[in-house]
C-alpha cells in the first residue's frame, strides 16, 4: 500500500516536472521564432538592454531596434532589468550577450555609475557599447551616447511657460524624478533656465519617480503647502496627469499651467485635451534605430561610433506662444511613442 503510493507519487512528480519542462521549452522555442530570426551565419548580433520591459518608452525603443535590425540584416536580442534601478540584472544581461557573441550592445543604464565596470569588461572584449537615453557616469565609459538633450527639453518648456504667463507672478511647483538621477536633474535645471528662474523661486519641489499616483500625491501635498501655485513643471507626462487629477479635485485645473517632457502618445493626447499646456517630445525609436545602424556599421568596417548624438526634441502645444517655436498636437500624435 504505502509502497505503491510512494512510488507512484514520486513517479508522478518526475513525470509532471519533465512534462512541463518539455512544454515550457517548446514554448520558448516558438517564442524565439517569432521574436527574432534564429542565428544565421554572417548576421550581425546586436543586444539591446533597457531599464525595464514594461515602460512604453522602452517598448517603443525595442520596436525601433527591431525594425532597424530587420532592415539592416542584423539579429537583435533584448533584455531588461526587473525594475528601474536593477543594476545586477543589467550586468547579467551584458555578460550573457557577450557570451552570445554580440558585436555591439545598446543600453539604457539603470544606474549610471554601477553599470560601468560591466561595460568596461564588455568593451575589453571588443564589443561596441552605446548608451541610449541615459548617459553613464563618467560619460566616457561607453563608446557613444545617443540621447535626447534633456537640458534643452527642459529649456523649451521653461521658455514656453514664461511666455504663457505673460508677465504674471509665477508660483512654481516642480514634480521631479528622484535625487541624483541625471535625466531628472537636467530637465529640472533646463526648465529653470528657460523660465529665467532659480531654485529659490520654486515654491514646492517633490520627487515622483515619474509615477502618476506619486505625482498626484506630490501635487496634493504641494497645494496644501502653497495653495496659489500656478505653474507646474513635471518630469514626465504620467507625473503631469497625476498633478492634473490633484488640481481638478481642487477645481484649479483651468488656471494652473502644467508643462512636461516626453511626448508619449497618452501625454500628447493630454496636451490636445488641454490637460497639459505643452510638452517636449523625445524620440526613443530613433535612438534605438541609430544605435543598431551604428553596430552594423562597426561590424562592416570596424569603425566605432563615438561621442554624443542628439536625437532631437520638439516642443508640442496647441496654444502657440509668440517667440517660442512649437508644433501642434497633430504633428505630436503622428510622431509620438507608446
Amino acid at each position, binding site marked *: 500500500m504505502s509502497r505503491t503510493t510512494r512510488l507512484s507519487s514520486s513517479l508522478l512528480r518526475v513525470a*509532471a*516536472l519533465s512534462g512541463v519542462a518539455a512544454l515550457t521549452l517548446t514554448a*520558448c522555442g516558438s517564442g524565439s521564432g517569432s521574436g527574432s530570426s534564429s542565428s544565421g551565419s554572417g548576421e550581425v548580433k546586436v543586444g539591446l538592454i533597457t531599464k525595464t520591459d514594461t515602460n512604453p518608452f522602452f517598448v517603443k525603443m525595442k520596436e525601433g531596434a527591431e525594425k532597424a535590425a530587420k532592415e539592416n540584416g542584423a*539579429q537583435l*536580442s533584448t533584455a531588461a532589468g*526587473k525594475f528601474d534601478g536593477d*543594476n545586477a540584472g543589467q550586468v547579467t544581461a551584458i555578460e550573457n550577450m557577450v557570451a552570445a557573441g554580440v558585436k555591439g550592445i545598446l543600453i539604457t543604464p539603470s544606474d549610471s*555609475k554601477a553599470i560601468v565596470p560591466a561595460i568596461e569588461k564588455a568593451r575589453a572584449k571588443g564589443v561596441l557599447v552605446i548608451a541610449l537615453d541615459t548617459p553613464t557616469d563618467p560619460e566616457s565609459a561607453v563608446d557613444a551616447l545617443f540621447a535626447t538633450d534633456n537640458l534643452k527639453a527642459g529649456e523649451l518648456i521653461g521658455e514656453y511657460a514664461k511666455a504663457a504667463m505673460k508677465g504674471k507672478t509665477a508660483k512654481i511647483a516642480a514634480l521631479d524624478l528622484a535625487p541624483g538621477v541625471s535625466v531628472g536633474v537636467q530637465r529640472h535645471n533646463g526648465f529653470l533656465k528657460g523660465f529665467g528662474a532659480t531654485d529659490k523661486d520654486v515654491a514646492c519641489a517633490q520627487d515622483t519617480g515619474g509615477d502618476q499616483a506619486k505625482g498626484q500625491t506630490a501635487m496634493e501635498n504641494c497645494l496644501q503647502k502653497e495653495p496659489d501655485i500656478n505653474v507646474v513643471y513635471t518630469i514626465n507626462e504620467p507625473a503631469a496627469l497625476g498633478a492634473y487629477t490633484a488640481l481638478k479635485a481642487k477645481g484649479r485645473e483651468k488656471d494652473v499651467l502644467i508643462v512636461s517632457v516626453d511626448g508619449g502618445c497618452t501625454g500628447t493626447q493630454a496636451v490636445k485635451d488641454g490637460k497639459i499646456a505643452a510638452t517636449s517630445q523625445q524620440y526613443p525609436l530613433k535612438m534605438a534605430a541609430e544605435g543598431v545602424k551604428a553596430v552594423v556599421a562597426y561590424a562592416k568596417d570596424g569603425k566605432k561610433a563615438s561621442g554624443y548624438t542628439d536625437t532631437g526634441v520638439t516642443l508640442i502645444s496647441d496654444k502657440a506662444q509668440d517667440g517660442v517655436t512649437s508644433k501642434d498636437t497633430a504633428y505630436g500624435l503622428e510622431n509620438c511613442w507608446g
Partner: protein
Amino acid sequence: MTATTTPPGTSSPYAELKAPTTARRLLTAPTTGPLVALLLACAFFSFSTEQFLTGGNFSLIVQQVMVVGTLAIGQTLIILTAGIDLSCGAVMAFGSIVIAKMAAEGSLPPLAAIALGLVVCGGFGLLNGLLVQKIPLPPFIVTLGMLNVAFALTHIYSEEQTVTNLPGPLTALGETFPLGHTDITYGSLVTIALFLLLAYSLSNTGWGRHVYALGNSQEAARLNGIRTSRLTIGIYTVAGLLYGIAALLLISRTGVGDPQAGQTDNLDSITAVVLGGTSLFGGRGSVLGTFIGVLIVGVFRNGLQLMGVASIYQTLITGVLVILAVTVDQLSRKKAR
C-alpha cells in the same frame, strides 16, 4: 549524496522499516524532480545554441547565481523551520553599502569593513530571530518590517549614491583563475563551498536533525528535549551571516556598492528554494535542492538570452515552474499520508 537528499523527517515510517533500494531512494528524493528539470533544460539549450555547452558559459552561469544562491542557503534554513525571510535582499544591500562605504571612505581597513558588514547582517538575522521567537511574531510580518527598515537604512546611509573606487580586497572574490581553458570566479567557489558545508551540517549533524525536527513540529521537537528557542534564533542569525557573505559577493561581482541592489532578491531566493523541492510548510527539503533551484533560474536566463529570446519569457517560465514545483510538493505530501 544520496544520504543528503533523504534527510531525517522526510521519509515515512514504512520506508524506515524496509530498506529502500537505491533506485527508489533516488526517485523519492525531493531533489530528483528539480534535477531532471535542470538536465532537460541543459539538454535543450545545448541543442539550440552552440555557445551554451562550454566551460566558460557554465562558469558564467554559476557566477551569475552566486549572490542569490548564497541568500537562498539562508532562506532554505529558515523555510525548513516553516518560516520565511522577506528581508534577505534588503539586509544584503545594507551590508554591501556598509562594507563599500566604510572601506571606500577609508573609515576602516578593507578587511575590518568586511567583518563589520558580516556583523551587521548577522545582527539583523539575530533581531529577526528574537522577534520571531521571543515575542513571538509571525516570520512573514517580522521580516516584512525588517525589509523596510533595512531598505530605508540603506538609502539613508548611502545618501542614494552608488559607492565606487573600492579597494582591492573588496572585489577580490570577483577575480578569476584559469582552470584548463575556463576562467573560474573565486566567489563561485565560496558559494559552492557554503552549499556543501550547509548540506553536510543538515544531513550529518545533530544540529541538522534538530532543524528538520523543528520544521516538522516545534511542539514535538520541544517535548523531545530540543531547545527550540535557541535553535530558531541561531538559524536566523546564521542566515543573516550568510546574507553578509552574499553582500561581499555582490560587491565583488558588480565592483560597486549599489543602494538599489537586491530589491527582488527576497522573492528570487524563495523561488530558488521552492524550485529546489523544499516545502514551504517546513521540515522537508535540502540546500542541494536549492542549489539546483538557483541553477534552473540561471540556466533559463542564460540559455534564453543566448537564443535571443526576450527576458520577459524567462520571467514567464520561472513563474510556471514555481507553481509546478509547489503543486508537486503539495500532491506528494497528500499521497505520502
